[in-house]
């Protein structure tokens, strides 16, 4: 089996995912094409060597529909011969795009492929694609469907995380993100979004709240009480986990991932393809896998998939120097820390989606770049990247520097 290497990674800054966000005026297509163009230009990439462009995108309707990957590659000037495919594994789409690209290379069928993702949450609303799971009684009822926020609150209730616990975690995320930006830890990867005249529209993550503190977070009302109580979802949660007397609604906008716009792309290739392009590999994709987890609680997949991947590679949790565990909700990361009893300093050391935001289809790819930059900065070797996923899944990838 061939090795798959990461040759480069780029991402856009993350814009606030509302109509007053800086990237709201930038279409999904321009976001994705911008990332692809940056990857091409700064590596002086001969796109003749690129066999495929795989982009994660979750809500694919309107401007993001009908294979945004192919259209983005065309608009980014990759040439007619470069195909593209859009994939959707909800929040892990960007990581799966990297894994799929790696799999193509590892299998020897492709020599070089791009994995990445895009989501303009300000322009294409979360959930606008629809879908059978929450809606069709044949699916929703037997699987105890509930919205993710209620699942996150259920995790907090079942595993004993208080409002203070989740708020404290959120503040730590903000602190780490602010510190990382201050030190320029993302400089290698973040490529500003510019207008048609080359003027910068956004060059930093604009969702951050570095001055958040326990007091300011305490003033926020829990977001999922109404849904839980009047929408009937607390009852669903309790029937699935009857050891719970009442759901402790602890999550709110300040300790959940931010809604943002953004795109990312990683260049993946074999050793030979890298040599042909005159590129130096930055890391090797060591292993990856996916798993299905209990769909009602939905967001515990990172624990299950990490166990599976460690078992598959024969590694122990202590072999990993750095973890990127997507901060979909604070309780997701707290559960990961609890399950593996790992040093919190090793998990999301540069902050995460609570501070910087979670552009659904792109985040997984962004986390790989963050892990890679941080391994290089600290001189460490191995990182594990994992995300929780809608409908109860987990994806994880281990990279190691070469």
């Amino acid at each position, binding site marked *: 089996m061939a090795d798959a290497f990461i040759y480069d990674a780029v991402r856009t800054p993350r814009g606030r995912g509302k109509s007053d966000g800086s990237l709201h005026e930038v279409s999904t297509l321009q976001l994705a094409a911008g990332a692809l163009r940056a990857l091409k230009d700064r590596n002086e990439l001969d796109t003749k060597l690129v066999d495929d462009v795989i982009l994660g995108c979750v809500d694919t309707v309107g401007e993001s529909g009908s294979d945004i990957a192919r259209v983005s590659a065309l608009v980014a000037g990759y040439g007619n011969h470069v195909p593209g495919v859009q994939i959707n594994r909800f929040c892990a789409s960007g990581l799966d795009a990297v894994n799929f690209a790696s799999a193509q290379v590892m299998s020897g069928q492709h020599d070089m492929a791009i994995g990445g993702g895009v989501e303009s949450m300000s322009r294409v609303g979360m*959930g606008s694609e*629809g879908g059978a799971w*929450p*809606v*069709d*009684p*044949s699916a*929703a*009822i037997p699987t*105890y*469907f*509930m*919205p993710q926020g209620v699942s996150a609150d259920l995790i907090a209730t079942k595993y004993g995380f208080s409002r203070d616990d989740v708020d404290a975690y959120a503040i730590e995320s903000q602190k780490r993100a602010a510190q990382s930006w201050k030190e320029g830890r993302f400089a290698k990867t973040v490529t500003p979004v510019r207008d048609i005249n080359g003027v910068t529209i956004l060059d930093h993550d604009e969702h951050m709240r570095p001055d958040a503190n326990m007091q300011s977070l305490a003033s926020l009302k829990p977001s999922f009480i109404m849904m839980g109580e*009047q*929408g*009937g*979802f607390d*009852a*669903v949660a*309790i*029937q699935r*986990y*009857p*050891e*719970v*007397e*009442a759901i402790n609604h602890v999550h709110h906008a300040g300790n959940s991932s931010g809604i943002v716009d953004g795109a990312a792309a990683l260049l993946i290739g074999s050793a030979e393809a890298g040599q042909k392009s005159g590129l130096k590999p930055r890391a090797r994709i060591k292993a990856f896998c996916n798993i299905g987890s209990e769909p009602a609680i939905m967001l515990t997949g990172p624990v299950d998939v990490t166990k599976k991947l460690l078992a598959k590679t024969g590694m122990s949790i202590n072999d990993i120097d750095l973890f990127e565990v997507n901060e979909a909700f604070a309780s997701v990361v707290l559960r990961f820390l609890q399950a593996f009893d790992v040093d919190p300093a090793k998990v999301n050391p540069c902050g995460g989606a609570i501070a910087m935001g979670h552009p659904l289809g792109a985040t997984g790819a962004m986390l790989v770049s963050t892990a890679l930059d941080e391994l290089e900065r600290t001189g460490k070797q191995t990182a594990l990247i994992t995300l929780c996923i809608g409908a109860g899944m987990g994806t994880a990838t281990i990279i190691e520097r070469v």
Partner: protein
Amino acid sequence: MNLVNFKHDTDADGILTLVWDMPGKPMNVLDQSLMNELDAIVDHVIADAAIKGVVLTSGKDAFCAGADLTMMEGAGKEFAAAVKARGQEAAMKEFMAQAGAGSRVFRRIETCGKPWAAAINGVALGGGFEITLACHYRVIADNAKAQVGLPEVKVGLFPGAGGTQRIPRLMATPDALQFLFKGESWKPAKAKQMNLVHEVAPEGEIVARAKAWIKGGGKAVAPWDEKNFKMPSGKIFSPIGMMVWPPANAIYRKETYDNYPAVKAILKCVYEGLQLPIDQALTVETRYFAQIMRSKEAAAMIRSLFLSMGELNKGARRPKSEPKTTLKKIGVIGAGFMGAGIAYVTAMAGAEVVLVDRDQAAADKGKAHSDALISARVAKGRATAEQKEALLARITPTADYGDLKGCDLVVEAVFEDRGVKAETTKKAQAVLGADIVFASNTSTLPITSLATEAQKPENFIGIHFFSPVDKMMLVEIIMGERTGDKALATALDFVRLIKKTPIVVNDTRGFFANRCVGRYVAEGHLMLMEGVPPAMIENVARMAGMPVGPLSLNDEVAIDLSWKIVQATKKDLGEQAVDPAQEKLIKTMVVDHERFGRKNGKGFYDYPQGGKKKLWPGLSTLAGKALDPDTIDVEELKQRFLVVQAVEAARTMAEGVVTDPREADVGSILGFGFAPFTGGAISYIDFMGTKAFVELCDRLTAKYGDRFVPPALLRDMAKTGETFYAKFAPKKAA
């Protein structure tokens, strides 16, 4: 046309009026003969050019109360026989054709090309309402009895003749789902407001109005057959749909614990049907209807909640030789909470009540209970001030036994003490003589021994009410060894008068209901001592179908009372009669922590002032161990709750305490809320199969102890798979 079920007449305008009036039946029902006749009528209407339109009305007091449920109860069995005879696929096709017969002929009415108008003169329920939904116009009489509704879910079915499709095409999806879920009936004004009928008119004018609509050019096209028809809530996959459907699915589970397949089928029919043209939508509905008709839940609920309950209410157990009694004046002795409640329901039924207690103040206090209850009804608009006055005037509170003179029956609800009861009996008989039927509302003392205090023990009987009397629909009638037919007939007539449901049980400790429910509460206690998380005990009990968790129930009844019962049980039946783990728990709660239940604000729950009750955090330490919830088999917990009660019910039948499975079933549902979708504690066994049930008992006995050991009778029945309803086949009421 030669019609059996309809009188008909065509007027000068060519409007055919069909007066639905089935011969020899008190009510119009939908049966096969009616479907056939409707089919022929539609053919005739299409063929006869002189007919311009049709008005459908009824010659009975009610328009139509729906399908013949007796026919539906046996659907599953008939189908099984057909499968044996003709194979699965052929039998299924036949069955579906049968299940869809009503829907098909209604659709023919709707698409026959000529306008149909329904003139609804009274109650139109179930299929009786669905036929009007297939008419192009509906006028309803503005009278007190008229109402429309689809109550099928209450007996485990759903409206399968177009109801799940036409209702959500007439009103917003959330309203439609709620109407279908609840099986409510709406009066004319509400029906008009919700778009279910087009017009409300005085009863004498409904046919004329219906004709006027036809003459005025009423269109023979249903709204959903128009090209530009839009669903009231738009498309399912739309922002509105996303607000409606995920919560609808959740609320289904919240309300039903996913125990009621008919309610789930409604959701599926509406969800799938709203994405289809009406004809395909009706096919989808028929498929689900054919599935639900064969479900054991439908069979069980029709039998227990409709047929058996009706039979018991009509006096299935009344000795036929006894002449009808007249019960105009009832004596109630003891004006405490129970006696006051009995006085209230008796006066509500229109009888005079003499309410006796030790002193006038106590008797007056008992009457005040009625005042409070009826005043609350007046405040809610459910009764008038005049009705309140009349009700209170019927209750005479007194301390003088002499006032009992002229009573037709005496019900005693004094303190549970043999001496006090004996004295009451003597005093009453001193006034009324030996021939008066004397009933004791005791829950713990044997009737046979109390009867020895009566001059004629054959006139002494138990009438055991449940608390609160005004809400609980069950009454246990307890036969002492010497209780005679006259006492039984009188007691049954009394229960019928107050519109409650009687079961007749033979005298034994705890009678029927309290024996079974005691097992339920004890099972909760034992789970707690095993280390099952307290919330899981309560939640899983409700998931099993019980209305209240065992710990909540114990808090309501009072834990110190349980402690007294534990001691009495040991005294009467020996040490082994109480599980030491249960005894330890109750003792710790009552003696060490003084946690008596809701009454002192501290029980298995804490009851904060003005706040929601919460499980007492100290509970987790009582067991001394805590199981990991992820390792607990929730399905087994559910089974334990139901099996422990069902096996006790089986024992009552084996012992001859209960002699008719209908009484055990109806009694278990009305008396202590035994999972209604099972049809009751005995149907639970029968539908599982006695063999499978005994195997389950054996498995639970091995794991959890002798309380699951089935009686020898049940073991015998299991050998041949005999059911209770076969072995103790109830005589059908005349």
